[in-house]
């Protein structure tokens, strides 16, 4: 007879859920994971991973277009939109299978269906299609600890309801049948900017509309301004401080009404619109209201150990609040099960969660922006180093970008690091490790960075903060 009682049961198999399940199994808990759609969740199937596949196609296409710059010739450069999408789907599928394998390897029982909690320790799973082999089906299950990892979905703003044909969310934007001639992207967060970058590289006329005065609103203002300059140079039209009042559908296209801060109105016609105005937690249909699980502004309220107000019920990842990032979800999941095990992990320090945007140029950051550091009352030292001063960047043909670091003047503690330019999403982790180990400027200055690499800019930026920059 199939097992129906578990130590730990996780609802949702996104990057947070499945990592939590593996850690839980490693700790010796009998673990199950419930999924209704795709193992690996949005991240693997409709988010982080497939978009990276699309952006890689765009990047290589861009290189082909600029082959001459490198002394190469590539005539008749073109793309097949279908094949680009197909590659992206194949990448997602491969990783999706990978999660299935990981669950099996770690003896995590997959349960297929839609879960709701009847009472602490008791859940009911209702049927859903496409159950993978070996998964348990709809039934009642018991678990001492239930971890909600149900993720988030695109937020819908009134007047901009996605119809999935003309007005897209990231789901449709990821699998376009053709590349639209013109595209309007509402929202300039990571999702909006990445799609803008992708479609622009493949030739769309792209307009980005942002309500706030700055694109990439969570990033450092200086970095965001540099990114904006670069996007505009590529031909992306950017409207900040602009509000979308309505999107009308007209035949096989749209007209969007936009109001600028001074009340000036304009309408922009575009074949397609992508609504990328953020995501909202999946808190519905889980029985949370009945259990009186505390919810605030669409996400579940948790403590440092990911406990909700109801004993035995925990939440991690997007559904437990911002920042809605896969790596934040993973870390929360690990903290959550380790706390259940009694290992006394430290709660996550939200300041040490890096953020990456894979547009061209890339943007990556960790910690406090310059403005946030000042607002928090720190006396700061700021160091900067531009890509133009780095030999590797010049050799790569990527001379645009900036590495910026913010230090606490008093203690030398690194408060934040912000970068824009080629490959910075792979660089930021150096600073994340440094901050996590509480290094000061001194240790960073004593660290030997290999030459020639882009990473040398990371040391130079630190040196610059202390008036010791070398190569500029």
């Amino acid at each position, binding site marked *: 007879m199939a097992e129906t009682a578990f*130590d730990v049961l996780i609802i949702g198999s996104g990057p947070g859920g499945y990592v939590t399940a593996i850690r839980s199994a490693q*700790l*010796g808990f*009998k673990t199950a994971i419930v999924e209704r759609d795709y193992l690996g969740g949005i991240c693997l199937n409709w988010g982080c991973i497939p978009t990276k596949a699309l952006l890689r196609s765009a990047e290589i296409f861009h290189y082909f277009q600029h082959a001459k710059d490198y002394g190469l010739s590539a005539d008749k450069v073109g793309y097949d939109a279908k094949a680009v999408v197909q590659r992206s789907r194949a990448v997602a599928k491969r990783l999706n299978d990978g999660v299935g394998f990981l669950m099996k390897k770690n003896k995590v029982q997959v349960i297929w269906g839609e879960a709701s909690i009847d009472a602490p320790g008791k859940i009911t799973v209702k049927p859903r299609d496409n159950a993978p082999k070996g998964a348990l089906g709809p039934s009642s299950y018991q678990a*001492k600890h239930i971890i909600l990892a149900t993720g988030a979905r695109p937020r819908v703003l009134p007047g901009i309801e996605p119809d999935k044909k003309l007005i897209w969310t990231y789901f449709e934007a990821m699998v376009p049948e053709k590349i639209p001639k013109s595209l309007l992207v509402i929202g300039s967060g990571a999702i909006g900017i990445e799609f803008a970058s992708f479609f622009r590289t493949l030739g769309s006329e792209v307009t980005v509309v942002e309500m706030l005065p700055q694109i990439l609103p969570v990033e450092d203002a200086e970095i965001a301004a540099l990114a904006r300059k670069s996007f505009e140079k590529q031909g992306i039209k950017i409207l900040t401080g602009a509000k979308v009042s309505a999107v009308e559908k007209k035949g096989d296209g749209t007209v969007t009404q936009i109001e600028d801060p001074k009340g000036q109105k304009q309408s922009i016609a575009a074949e397609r619109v992508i609504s990328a105005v953020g995501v909202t937690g999946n808190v519905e249909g889980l029985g949370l209201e009945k259990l009186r699980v505390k919810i605030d502004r669409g996400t579940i309220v948790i403590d440092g150990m990911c406990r909700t107000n109801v*004993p*035995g019920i925990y939440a991690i990842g997007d559904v437990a609040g911002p920042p809605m990032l896969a790596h934040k979800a993973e870390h929360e999941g690990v903290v959550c099960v380790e706390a*259940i095990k*009694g*290992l*006394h992990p*430290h709660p996550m320090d939200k300041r040490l969660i890096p953020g990456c945007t894979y547009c061209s140029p890339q943007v990556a950051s960790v910690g406090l922006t310059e403005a946030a550091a000042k607002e928090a009352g720190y006396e700061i030292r700021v160091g900067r180093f531009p890509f133009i001063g780095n030999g590797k960047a010049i050799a790569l043909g990527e001379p645009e970008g900036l590495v910026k670091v913010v230090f606490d003047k008093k*203690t*030398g*503690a690194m408060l934040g690091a912000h970068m824009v330019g080629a490959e910075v999403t792979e660089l930021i982790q150096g600073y994340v490790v440094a901050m996590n*180990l*509480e*290094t*000061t400027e*001194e*240790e960073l200055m004593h660290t030997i960075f290999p030459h020639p690499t882009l990473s040398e800019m990371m040391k130079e930026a630190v040196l610059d903060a202390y008036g010791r920059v070398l190569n500029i």
Partner: protein
Amino acid sequence: MPINILMPALSPTMEKGNLAKWLKKEGDPVKAGDIIAEIETDKATMEVEAADEGVLAKIVVPEGTADVPVNQLIAVLAGEGEDVKAAAAGAKSAAAPAPATEALPKAASAPPPSPQPSPQRGEGVPPSSPQPAAVPAGAPSPGEGPRVDLRRMDGGRIFSSPLARRLAREAGIDIGRVQGTGPRGRVVARDIEAAKSGKGLRAPGAPAAAPAPAAAPIGARAPSDEKIRALFEPDSYEVVPHDNMRKIIAQRLTESKLTIPHFYLTIDCLIDRLLAAREEINATAPKDKDGKPAYKISVNDFVIKALALALQKVPEANVTWTESAMLKHKHSDVGVAVAIKGGLITPVVRKAEQKSLSAISNEMKDFAARARARKLAPHEYQGGSTAVSNLGMYGIKDFYAVINPPHATILSVGAGEARPVVRDGKIEAAQIMTVGLSTDHRAVDGALGAELLAAFRGYIENPVMMLV
């Protein structure tokens, strides 16, 4: 799967606690959220809630056990439908690696929320007792088992973050005294922040701390326990484990003699007038209806008062040495060594210069009674700038006591006795009391100490001057 209940960390800096009480017995059913035990830390008593449901199969650490390290197995819960006996049996092997803690002496009889009595100057933090020194074989892999303080495994290296080291340096905190809460006891920035307000700060030289620079030579020089024991015939002695008070006396006085350059002065005081005044004062004490006098002033009470006034007269000697500056005290807070069973404790008479002899006398009686019952609160025995140690009642003529940091001086009082003195070329008998003064030469130089002692003698020989 039986569920192991581990010693919880009730605060980020907690490393160990006393298991004060079990509220459930073996065999009791437990629901998640039930209070199962009470844990005492140096600061408070807190309740432990069960996180799981089941039956309390085995209590591994009995109530009343002191200094149980965080994450040590304290009990085992049998899950629903599990065999309680099997779960309990499993607990034995699990508990085995940490037998040392169970052998530790019971918590001192101090009231639960207050720190254990620290006979000399307490820090408000009882020093940790020695932990099992090495990781037992078959211990859980790093990160999953009890946290092991790496500092004790690696000849004294203090694992700490660069930022923590810098913050500690700037705050003037010895990082070796800071309780680390990072991975495996690594000292991180938040620990220094906590230490600034005294949290998680170990007493200097406490065994749990990495050897402080000053303490290092002792470790190197002192022969091992085995070597010392080998000098005696087996069974020719009894091994009496140190209690906390003994450990603290050993640490603090070793620290004192190693770090404080002691300098000694002696003076003879004529106390005929003092004895006469004492007799007069005590004879005229008002009596209550049972005929009990309202006060009975001792010679020592006069000594306390005289020292307090002398410190006011020579304020340069009313000081405490710190590395960066001299603390010049405004009041005369005089510690008085009280011998109690198994050691001594030094309650402090605050602002003694302002107190009448009868007030000092009554305060001392109360202190002595409560010291013997080990009921003194930390604030009553911490601080002070000097102390009085009186061994006159044993007939000791003179001696020099060890300075009790943060004091800069200590007065050693011998017996008052009739001795021949020379007056106007003739030998006469007089009541003489010899007092010794040990000074911290960093803070009180020889001449300054002499000045203080002369001022003291002025008051002792002319007790009327204490009224001025």
